[in-house]
């Protein structure tokens, strides 16, 4: 057997594999904070009604604030086109084959935008309930959306993303009765994977819950600002 003292056999490294992403995200978070931008990262399955809902929220918020959105998608500009109708500044991030957004993509796509001109920034992640969970984008709040048409046990099927979220939003609640949505079962499933998570029920069609979401955002932004001024 050869002597191998010149070469260590095992060296402890202990580094986060997503270190690069997390460092970038930290930089973004500081940049947003300094400029007073409140950032929301929206995650859901395809078809949960993210874009429709976001158009509503942007329109509502846009009456009093400067709003912007980054929209992640594998291809096409369709979602961005729809969102632009709200009057917000919108940019599409086309990821190609990548099924989630990374901090670097966010940073790159903010180029040319003056952060001081934005009050609320929404990042619509790629429609996927698995991959976006691992990537911090420097957001203030991660929101996971489920529609009533997806069934009550969806949170249990995608626990990782729910566990990493700060707020859950149930969409298309105007259809709840028609599809036989069992509210209690859904709430129970949510609390199995993320006890204590706040929940909002909304409908882009009826307008239900949109005001609540808007005031939630306003409050969150205000407390964010207070945090900065007292620190």
């Amino acid at each position, binding site marked *: 057997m*050869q002597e*191998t003292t010149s*070469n260590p*056999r095992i060296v402890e*490294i202990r*580094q986060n*594999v997503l270190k690069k992403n997390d460092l970038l995200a930290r930089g973004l978070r500081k940049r947003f904070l300094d400029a007073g931008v409140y950032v929301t990262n929206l995650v859901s399955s395809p078809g949960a009604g993210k874009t429709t809902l976001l158009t509503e929220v942007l329109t509502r918020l846009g009456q009093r604030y400067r709003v912007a959105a980054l929209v992640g998608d594998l291809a096409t500009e369709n979602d961005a086109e729809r969102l632009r109708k709200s009057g917000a500044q919108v940019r599409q991030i086309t990821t190609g084959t990548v099924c*989630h957004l990374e901090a670097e993509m966010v940073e790159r796509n903010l180029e040319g935008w003056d952060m001081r001109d934005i009050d609320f920034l929404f990042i619509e992640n790629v429609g996927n309930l698995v991959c976006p969970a*691992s990537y911090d984008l420097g957001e203030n709040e991660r929101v996971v959306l489920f529609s009533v048409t997806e069934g009550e046990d969806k949170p249990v099927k995608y626990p990782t993303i729910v566990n990493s979220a700060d707020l859950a939003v149930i969409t298309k609640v105007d259809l709840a009765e028609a599809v036989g949505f069992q509210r209690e079962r859904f709430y129970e499933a949510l609390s199995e994977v993320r006890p204590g998570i706040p929940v909002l029920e909304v409908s882009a069609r009826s307008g239900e819950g949109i005001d609540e979401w808007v005031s939630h955002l306003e409050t969150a932004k205000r407390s964010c600002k207070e945090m900065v001024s007292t620190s």
Partner: protein
Amino acid sequence: MHELSIAQSLVELAIEAAADAGIKPVKAVHLKLGTLSGVVKESLEFSFDIVTEGTPLEGARLVIEEVPVKVFCPDCREAHVLPEPFPMRCPVCGVKTGQVLEGREIELYALEGGEGDAGDDVESTDR
């Protein structure tokens, strides 16, 4: 599937770390993977072999240690490992808790080097 991106980040980090620590060749890459990391072990292993091709890490083994979820129970005022990642309840008193202490990590834990002697087994060098 984001395991390919994760494998890419892992390999870049490992190559850097190996150079810093002067480990050449790298025989194995040890990774700690939390059950709440959102990463599928098998996909990552598959991606690792693809990503290492043609790099200084080619031929290195990926050794994954799965890290279970550890939560803090506000009632027991203690940390407990969950037998299953869900439900998120204290396994001792049954109280629901979302305070995750461990189980989210994707950590390059260690690098294993050697003299490049293919027949040289890791465990056989006890002196």
